[in-house]
């Protein structure tokens, strides 16, 4: 008689812990053959607010880590993903996504791991002002950033969107793919073992229409990045105006080649940075 396997209960990774939705709601996930696979948490606005709180709490500590340390932690995350490639490939196959996403996602993490202690030298500078002052511009993370992942490329797009944001010391509340949420559950398990402090990345699974309005208006989210359709973009930008939130959205109508390395790097890190300029007199 074959052994009965132990199935996993999918839980979202929030505040360094694995949670079910506070609402107790789930959505049944079926595999490509239409068979029941598992129940995925259907997170609510309250879950989102809790996640923002966790991200805000983790923020100052993460931003104060040295760039070298943040780089090593991102590298460690790549190690976790590489080592558990088969598991992630299986998670991707549940909803028919390509296993090829895994090595590219690993490579993307390595790419950003290397940027952690370099972007500042590319983006900040000393300014030659025409007065006796020492004047320099440095970057700072914005704070808590909302990430809206597209439906497609449930691992690669999610990683490509999150990595540049946390590289500079921001913390993230992300809404994973609505149609293929399972890889984000597994990614959460890898984040938990990657030395990334709890709360730096928080991954929620839910319906887009349920959470996007709260992403738009939550005043503690200082920026929103990701992929959205025209109606979602308008809703996010309208809500963002209330707290002058930064919005960097790709249009869902214009497909992105997530495999291409060309569109990922320094300027995606820059999207969630503030620039601070300090003046000091030069004198006795």
């Amino acid at each position, binding site marked *: 008689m074959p052994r009965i396997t132990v199935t996993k209960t999918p839980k979202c990774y929030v505040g360094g812990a694995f949670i079910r939705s506070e609402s107790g709601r789930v959505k049944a996930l079926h595999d490509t053959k239409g068979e029941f696979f598992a129940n995925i948490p259907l997170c609510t606005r309250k879950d989102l607010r809790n996640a923002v709180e966790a991200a805000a709490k983790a923020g100052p500590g993460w931003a104060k880590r040295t760039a070298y340390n943040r780089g090593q932690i991102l590298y460690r995350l790549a190690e976790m993903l590489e080592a558990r490639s088969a598991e992630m490939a299986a998670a991707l196959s549940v909803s028919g996504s390509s296993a090829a996403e895994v090595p590219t996602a690993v490579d993307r993490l390595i790419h950003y791991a290397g940027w952690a202690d370099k972007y500042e030298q590319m983006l900040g500078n000393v300014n030659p002002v*025409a007065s006796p*002052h020492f*004047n320099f511009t440095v970057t700072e993370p914005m704070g808590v950033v909302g990430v809206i992942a597209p439906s497609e490329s449930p691992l690669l797009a999610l990683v490509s969107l999150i990595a540049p944001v946390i590289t500079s010391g921001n913390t993230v509340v992300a809404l994973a793919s609505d149609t293929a949420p399972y890889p984000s559950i597994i990614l959460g398990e890898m984040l938990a073992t990657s030395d990334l402090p709890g709360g730096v990345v928080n991954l929620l699974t839910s319906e887009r229409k349920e959470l996007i309005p709260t992403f738009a208006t939550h005043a503690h989210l200082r920026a929103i990045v990701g992929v959205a359709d025209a109606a979602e973009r308008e809703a996010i930008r309208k809500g963002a105006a209330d707290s*002058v939130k*930064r919005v960097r959205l790709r249009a869902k109508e214009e497909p992105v080649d997530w495999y291409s390395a060309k569109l990922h790097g320094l300027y995606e890190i820059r999207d969630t940075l503030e620039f601070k*300029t300090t003046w000091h*007199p030069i004198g006795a």
Partner: protein
Amino acid sequence: MPTATKSRPKSNRELIFGDLWEYDPAPETADPKLKSRYDLFINGQFVKPKRGKYMPSINPGNEVKLADIAVADQDDVNAAYAAAKKASDGVWGKMSGLERGKYIYRIARLLQDRAREFAVAETMDGGKPIKESRDFDVPMAAAHFFYHAGWADKLEYVAPGREVKPHGVVGQVIPWNFPLLMLAWKLAPALAMGNTIVIKPAETTSITALKLAEIFQEADLPPGVVNIVSGEGPTGAAVMNHPTASKVAFTGSTEVGKIIMRALAGTEKKMTMELGGKAANIVFDDAPLDQAVEGIINGIFFNQGHVCCAGSRLLVQESVADAVLEKLKRRITVLRVGDPLDKNTDVGAINSKEQWNRIDELVKSGVKEGADLHQSACKLPPKGYYYRPTLFSGVSMSHQIAREEIFGPVLSILTFRTVDEAVEKANNTAYGLSAGVWTDKGSRILKMSTELKAGVVWANTYNKFDPTSPFGGYKESGFGREGGRQGLLDYCKVV
């Protein structure tokens, strides 16, 4: 804080001459070469507004009308955008960066040639002291053109590793506090990056913008590259909302910035917002107090306090609070308030009656909420919109005068005990444009500059600006930077 009742320590004795030797008037007499009527500048020509509507521009220093200014309506704005689009597609977008740069250099040089004329015009139109328009606004405007001109042929260095392209046509709306300088801040980087422009100056201060259009003609700038549409709120809305603009840049209040963001939410227009501020100017007990007092005075009374980054919340460490207040009270009595054209004037006229009323309303709220008012007893001219330099001591974080941007010569003074409390109070605002720190301790400066959530931090100085130095805010003070390398990227697409 009952400091008002304390007597001055004997060691601070000073000579008081009273009115014994009054300053003689020292008016700047250069001819501002004003026209009695200013038309719109569209497609390289001065054109009458289609509806024939004009608004008066008042000299706030004496309430005399200076000129009639054209009011652009939707049709005029459409014509301006059509000209900008044509110039973008036909000339400016195709021109080599080197050639584009030469035009911008010409503008810088021609403005320097006519600097005194522009300074007088700026002071008459806006009310700022001539020493500021002469020594700051106009030379700094020229410097912005000169700096950015040199970027025009170096676009490949703006975003190393990627290619940049101009947006095409840019729509811009600017405020009345630095009419010519804000115009330069907006135009110079946009032009250098290869964009063409439709810009609206503020309704009370359009004259120097339209005088600059004369320089564009002298510089032979191709028609349509810069189009200036004067007018009021509806003109500004038409400029921001026009479908031809692929990028808009706005400097003004946070309230209007949010309205623009909502109005453009359904479009893919790129935005830069330079909005309000309520900057903390923080004085520690080890600061050189006399220098700090000069910095505080400059921070709040520069340009009558009509400065988005004005140091309007003074945070003083408790142990030196009494001493700093005494010095400030004395210092405001010797500020010369009056005729903006007088070369000895420190504080000129409030830009408009409307703004004067808003300042006065907020000052009354400060008195009502229980803060202690200290005002200079100076004589004010009989005509014109003048406001006494004003200090409030005993202010708490909940007071309206500590939360809202006053945009006038009014300083709210609060105290703190520890570094952490200073940071907490400074950051406890929706704004995040600028901050000041005064201390002799280098490590504390660097700690404060790291902790303060503000786009510009002035340490042992205040209100310094430079074309090479990026300026712009955190939080509800807006996004995007103006000036420096960082400002350039807001005027091009990274592809």
